[in-house]
């Protein structure tokens, strides 16, 4: 039963006040894309046992989507950040690197 801090309103709340939304930073592929790109966009998932970037919505709060960096093996949360970005911010990356030197980095 996780707790997360919504970066949009600053509220720290439990999992039941949020709605999970799958892997973060999906890159959308539209009508001109290749079969492989489109399949990857819809289905290929990183699903690592370790550091994972994922989408959450503060469904019972401010209603905003945000992103979280979390370990799927220990459930440690490294940080949350607004959804309006295509890659994790540098401070979150740095924090993970510090705590998990063996982590191979984002993507």
């Amino acid at each position, binding site marked *: 039963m996780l707790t997360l801090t919504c970066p949009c*309103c*600053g509220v720290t*709340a439990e999992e039941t006040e949020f709605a999970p939304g799958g892997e973060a930073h999906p890159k959308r592929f539209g009508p001109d894309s290749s079969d492989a790109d489109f399949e990857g966009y819809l289905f290929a998932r990183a699903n690592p046992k370790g550091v994972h970037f994922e989408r959450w919505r503060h469904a*019972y709060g*401010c209603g905003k989507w945000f992103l979280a960096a979390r370990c799927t093996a220990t459930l440690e949360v490294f940080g949350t950040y607004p959804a309006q970005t295509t890659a994790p911010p540098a401070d979150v990356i740095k924090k993970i690197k510090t705590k998990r030197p063996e982590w191979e980095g984002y993507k």
Partner: protein
Amino acid sequence: MSNAVSALQGATYQGFVTVSEAGLIGMISIRGDLTSKPLLKALKTQGLSAPAPRQIVTSNDLTLAWMSPDELLLICDHSAAAQRAQTLTEALEKNHALVCNVSDARALFRITGSKADQVIMKLSPADIARLPMGEMRRTRLAQVAAAVWRSAPDEISLICFRSVATYVQGLLETSARPGSELFEAAPSSS
């Protein structure tokens, strides 16, 4: 409009606190850039200023709550809501903003008594003991969304959607039943 009725028409329950639906209340949702000058100006003409994140402020008969980074909720008289919404819409006509009268989409409850916190403790995962005056917490109340704030000493106000008002009243009544107090006195927030 004489035909208008609130969701529960002021239903009241007396338990170890008093739970009552507050009747018709005006509510206006304002979406826009909360830092933009036109919006601030439009608020000012209503005698309002934009609250800080999570804050809820009352001046004269108007209450204004921060709902999200691009949304405010103005609470006013029900009878004045449509007109106020229209005025705000017109004031923001040239700007990217959305003002909606949502008075009838919601229900407002008041939980009154020294143990009001205990009712919320039974229903919401929010740390109610640490909710200061002047702050609104949007949260979950059992299985529905709600927003709560301290509207007076020993009084908590609660907003939910109109369609679930009966459910929320049921939750509040069950939680406030005499004999089910959690504590003799309120637990400390320290």
